[in-house]
C-alpha cells in the first residue's frame, strides 16, 4: 500500500539555521501518527514542507504519493491543515470564513462545517477577532476537517481547547481514522498523543530520533511521582524497586522517577498509609536525555 506520507532524507535549512535534517519516515494510510518534539525541534518545519509552504533544501517528501511542489492545488484539496498558531481573518465571522474556505475547496459553502461547529459548540455568528483563543482554535479545527480530506496535517491541534473540547476533538480524529483517513498530528506533550496515536515519532533538534508504536513508547515513559505518607517510610525499600530512580524521602514525602509501569511502586506504597499521590509526566526533553543519549540505555 502506498504511504500517505513518505519522507526521504528530508532536509531544510533556513540560511544557516537548522530546520530539519535527514528525515526518513513513512506514515501509512489510515494511521494516526503522533509527531512529538519539544518546541523548536522542527515539527512545524516538517509540516510546512508537507504543504509546500516552504521547500526542502534536499531530500523530498511525498504526500499521498505526490510531490507537494508538483501536486499543487489538486493534492492540497485532499489535505486538511491546521497551523500551529492559526491566523484567521479577524473581521470575518466564523460563518463567513468557513463559507469562503469551503468554496475554495469545492464545497457548496459551509458544507459539513455547520455540524462540526455545533459539535465543538462554536458560535459561527461572531467576528473571529472577538473570539477567545479556544474558540479561534475551534474555527481552525473545523476548517481542517470540513472538506473530509484524505490526510489531516495538524500542528498542535488541541492547544487552547478546554478538556471537554479536546475530547470532542479526539472523537473527530477517531472518526477520521475509522473512515480510513490518515492523521498526522504534532505535539510537544506525550500525553496528548497517547490517547489517539497508533505510532509516534520523536523529533529532536531537527532529527527524528525514534519512531515507535505507542505501547513501546509508553513502556519507556518517565514519570515524576510524589507520594505523601502519613508517617516516615524506608527509602531503601523503594530505591530497590526496578524502574524506580532518584528516590528521595523527607519525612513522609517520597519523590522519585519511575520508568514505564508504576504498578510495583504503587503496590509497595500501599503497604503504608498514603495520604496523596501526585504524578507529573516528565517533559519530552528529559525523556530524550534519558533514553537517547546514553543514560537510559538500560531501558
Amino acid at each position, binding site marked *: 500500500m502506498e504511504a500517505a506520507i513518505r519522507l526521504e532524507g528530508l532536509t531544510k535549512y533556513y540560511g544557516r539555521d537548522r530546520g530539519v535534517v535527514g528525515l526518513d519516515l513513512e506514515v501509512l494510510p489510515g494511521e494516526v501518527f503522533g509527531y512529538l518534539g519539544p518546541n523548536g525541534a522542527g515539527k512545524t518545519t516538517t509540516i510546512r514542507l508537507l504543504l509546500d509552504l516552504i521547500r526542502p533544501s534536499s531530500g523530498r517528501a511525498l504526500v499521498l504519493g505526490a510531490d507537494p511542489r508538483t501536486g499543487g*492545488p489538486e493534492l492540497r484539496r485532499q489535505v486538511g491543515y491546521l497551523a500551529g498558531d492559526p491566523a484567521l481573518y479577524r473581521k470575518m465571522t466564523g460563518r463567513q470564513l468557513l463559507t469562503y474556505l469551503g468554496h475554495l475547496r469545492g464545497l457548496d459553502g459551509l458544507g459539513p462545517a455547520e455540524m462540526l461547529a455545533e459539535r465543538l459548540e462554536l458560535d459561527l455568528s461572531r467576528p473571529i477577532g472577538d473570539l477567545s483563543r479556544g474558540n479561534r482554535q475551534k474555527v481552525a479545527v473545523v476548517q481542517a476537517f470540513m472538506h473530509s480530506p484524505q490526510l489531516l496535517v495538524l500542528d498542535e491541534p488541541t492547544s487552547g481547547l478546554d478538556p471537554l473540547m479536546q475530547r470532542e476533538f479526539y472523537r473527530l480524529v477517531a472518526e477520521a481514522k475509522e473512515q480510513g483517513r490518515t492523521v498526522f498530528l504534532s505535539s510537544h506533550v506525550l500525553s496528548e498523543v497517547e490517547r489517539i496515536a497508533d505510532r509516534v515519532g520523536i523529533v529532536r533538534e531537527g532529527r527524528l530520533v525514534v519512531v515507535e508504536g505507542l505501547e513501546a513508547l509508553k513502556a519507556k515513559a518517565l514519570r515524576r511521582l510524589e507520594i505523601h505518607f502519613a508517617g516516615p517510610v524506608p527509602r531503601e525499600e523503594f530505591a530497590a524497586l526496578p524502574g524506580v530512580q532518584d528516590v528521595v524521602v523527607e519525612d513522609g514525602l517520597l519523590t522519585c522517577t519511575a520508568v514505564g509501569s508504576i504498578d510495583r511502586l504503587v503496590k509497595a506504597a500501599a503497604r503504608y498509609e498514603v495520604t496523596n499521590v501526585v504524578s507529573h509526566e516528565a517533559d519530552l526533553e528529559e525523556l530524550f536525555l534519558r533514553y537517547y543519549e546514553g543514560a537510559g540505555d538500560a531501558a
Partner: protein
Amino acid sequence: MLRSVFGAAVWSRRRSLAWWVGGSFVYLLFLGSAFPTIRDNAGDFEEMLESYPEALRAMFNMVEGVSLSTGPGFLHMELFSLVLPLLLIILAVGFGARAVAGEEEEGTLDLLLAGPISRRRWLAEQFGAMAAVTFLIGLANFVGMLLAGAAFDLGLDSGKLAAASLGVVLIALVFGSLALAVGAVTGKRGLAMGVASAAALAAYLVFSLAEVVTWLGTVQKASPWYYYAASAPLLRGMEWVHAGVLAAIALALPVAGGVILDRRDLAV
C-alpha cells in the same frame, strides 16, 4: 462575494470602497463649485502662475494652451496633474502591499495557500481585485466630475474625461502592481509600500523636472508618469499608445513577482 479570492479581496474592502466613493463625490462637487469663481478671476490666477518659477509650474503640468478659465484646463491643473493620481496611487499601493505581503505577515496567506489554490492564481486574483477596486473608484470619480461639470458648467467632453480618468486608473495600477510585486518577492509589506511610494514620487519628479532640467530630458520617457501626463488626454483625447505602455507595466510587474513568489518559502 465569498466564493473566490477575488471576491473576498473586494468584499473585505467594501467599507473603505464606500468611503472612497462618497468622499470623491463630496470633494468633486466642492471643487466644481469653486470653478465659477476661478473662471471669473482666471486672469489674476494665470498671472500669478506665470510669476512662479518654471519648475513649480512644471509640476502643474502646464501644457501648451491650457487655461484655468476653461473647465478642462481647470480640472487638468487642479486634479489630474497630481491630486487625483496621487489619491488613487495611495489606494492601489495600499491594496497591492497588503495583497501578498500583508497577508503573509498576518499569517492568513498560510491558511489560504495550504488549501487548493496556487500562488500564481492567488496573485492573479489579487491583482484582478486591485484593478477592479481602483477602476470602480476611477469610475466614481468620472461620474462625480460629470455631475460637477453639469452642475457648474465646466463644459467637459465626456470622451476626453473618460480617457483622462482611465489614465489615472492606469498610473495608479502601475504603482499598485509594483507594491504587489515587491510584496510577492519579499513578503514585506512596509518595504512594498515604501518602494512603490518612492517610485511614484520619483516618476512624478522626473517627468515634471525634465521640463526644466536639461539632463533629465533624456530620461523623461523612462518615467511611467510621462505616459500618464504627457498626452494630457483631458485636453487632447485618448492616446492609446501611452495607455498601452501603462497597462503593460501594470500587467508585467505581477507576472514577474509571481515567478519569484512561486519559488520562495513563505514566512511563518
